[in-house]
């Protein structure tokens, strides 16, 4: 996919796809209007005998901002150094209040590069004091070696028992750099070694380091266990790197990945691949059923993807400052055809395969 590589965000390039309405229009058309592909909501209705609804709140996923030191070709956030949206301390305080008043088990921090938020460390420390079972930081790895001020992040993570989840699209430099930018592979290896050195991914350390794999082009991820075994063997043999689990994620057809699919003329085939791989068992366990997503400005969404498509939750309370536990009691989920990305094959969520 190198010939379609974009070095700037869609926003910066002033691409028409930076408009979420345009993305949604594309998703609703194509094979769903010109061919006979069944729509996601029909499939869900047939599987669940009811529309998709939230069940309970286990995970609060907070997006700390769209700023990132990388510009990956597939990014569903359209993140990059030019994105200035950053969560304020005031919004973080509302998140902490929500955590205290709920039974949230996991706080899942994402971005952009969440570590670039100037109040990132304060937020992690405060959240820890609130007593959540688990704090996940979705780290792009390279941020750890990008600037001196981030070099001690592994120590900070270890001190607070943060569960680190890092992107790693392949064990080869060529494939990783094509997707994530030149030099990313070597920097990621350096960062993984630093994390290993403080105990991450090592047996009995209790410090969890998971990797996220997502395909480098217009194809679906293979079996998560097989990929995990392969990554473990290759990263250990070549670099002596250890990690706990690997999550195989499907690329959802939104934002920069949607742009790539269209430019490379893979869009219709990819949508058919998702539709054909629909798995009713995965549909029972999509992550919007137990996760609530908070955007950098405090708005609430069913998931990080709906956040990027600016599809608001179906409730009057739209902001984290209005959080209430009953928000997750059977709230109707806003769906479109991108949702097929969550139900293909073994299913896909921020915690990996679901079926």
């Amino acid at each position: 996919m190198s010939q379609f590589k974009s070095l700037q965000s869609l926003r910066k390039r002033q691409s028409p796809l930076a408009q979420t309405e345009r993305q949604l229009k594309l998703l609703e058309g194509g094979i769903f209007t010109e061919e006979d592909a069944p729509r996601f909501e029909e499939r869900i209705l047939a599987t669940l005998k009811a529309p998709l609804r939230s069940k309970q709140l286990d995970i609060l996923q907070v997006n700390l901002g769209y700023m990132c030191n990388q510009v990956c070709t597939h990014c569903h956030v359209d993140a990059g150094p030019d994105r200035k949206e950053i969560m304020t301390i005031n919004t973080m305080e509302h998140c902490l209040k929500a955590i205290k008043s709920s039974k949230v088990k996991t706080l899942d921090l994402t971005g952009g590069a969440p570590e670039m938020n100037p109040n990132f460390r304060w937020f992690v420390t405060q959240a820890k004091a609130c007593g959540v079972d688990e704090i996940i930081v979705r780290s792009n790895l390279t941020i750890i070696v990008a600037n001196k001020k981030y070099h001690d992040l592994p120590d900070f993570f270890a001190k607070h028992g943060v569960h680190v989840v890092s992107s790693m699209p392949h064990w080869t430099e060529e494939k990783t750099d094509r997707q994530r930018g030149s030099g990313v592979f070597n920097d990621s290896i350096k960062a993984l070694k630093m994390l290993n050195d403080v105990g991450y991914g090592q047996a009995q350390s209790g410090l969890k380091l998971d990797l996220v794999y997502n395909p480098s082009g217009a194809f679906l991820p293979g079996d998560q266990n097989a990929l995990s075994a392969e990554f473990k063997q290759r990263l250990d043999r070549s670099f002596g790197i250890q990690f706990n689990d690997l999550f195989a994620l499907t690329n959802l057809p939104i934002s920069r990945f949607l742009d790539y699919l269209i430019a490379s003329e893979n869009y219709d085939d990819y949508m058919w691949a998702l539709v054909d791989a629909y798995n009713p068992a995965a549909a029972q366990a999509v992550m919007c059923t137990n996760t609530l997503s908070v955007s950098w400005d405090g708005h609430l969404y069913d998931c990080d993807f709906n956040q990027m498509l600016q599809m608001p939750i179906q409730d009057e309370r739209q902001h984290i400052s209005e959080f209430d536990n009953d928000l997750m009691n059977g709230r109707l989920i806003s769906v479109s055809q991108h949702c097929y990305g969550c139900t293909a094959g073994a299913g896909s969520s921020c915690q990996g395969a679901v079926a």
Partner: protein
Amino acid sequence: MSYYDPKDLRKFGQITQWSESLGEKFFEYYNSVFKEGALTAREKSLIALAVAHTEMCPYCIDAYTKDGLERGITKNEMMEAVHVGAAIKSGASLVHGVMMMNKVNKLDS
């Protein structure tokens, strides 16, 4: 119009429509073959890719290239598999040269 339409690959399953029992038997057999066994599913995928090329089947090349990518198989590994197929195919032609030599030796004093 070409005889081969990439869209037809998706319709492969429909062959059961005109002979249900045989079609289903085939797919059951096919799916069993590709399960993890004495060989890994990954090894089987590479064998399938090599055979797809010797059979010169566009549908199989399409399917097993994608299958390889999904499994994280690299393009170098895929190309080596294709060379294995090509080497056997050309070797199979060339080894028949022995037949030609035998015939020449028998007929020509």
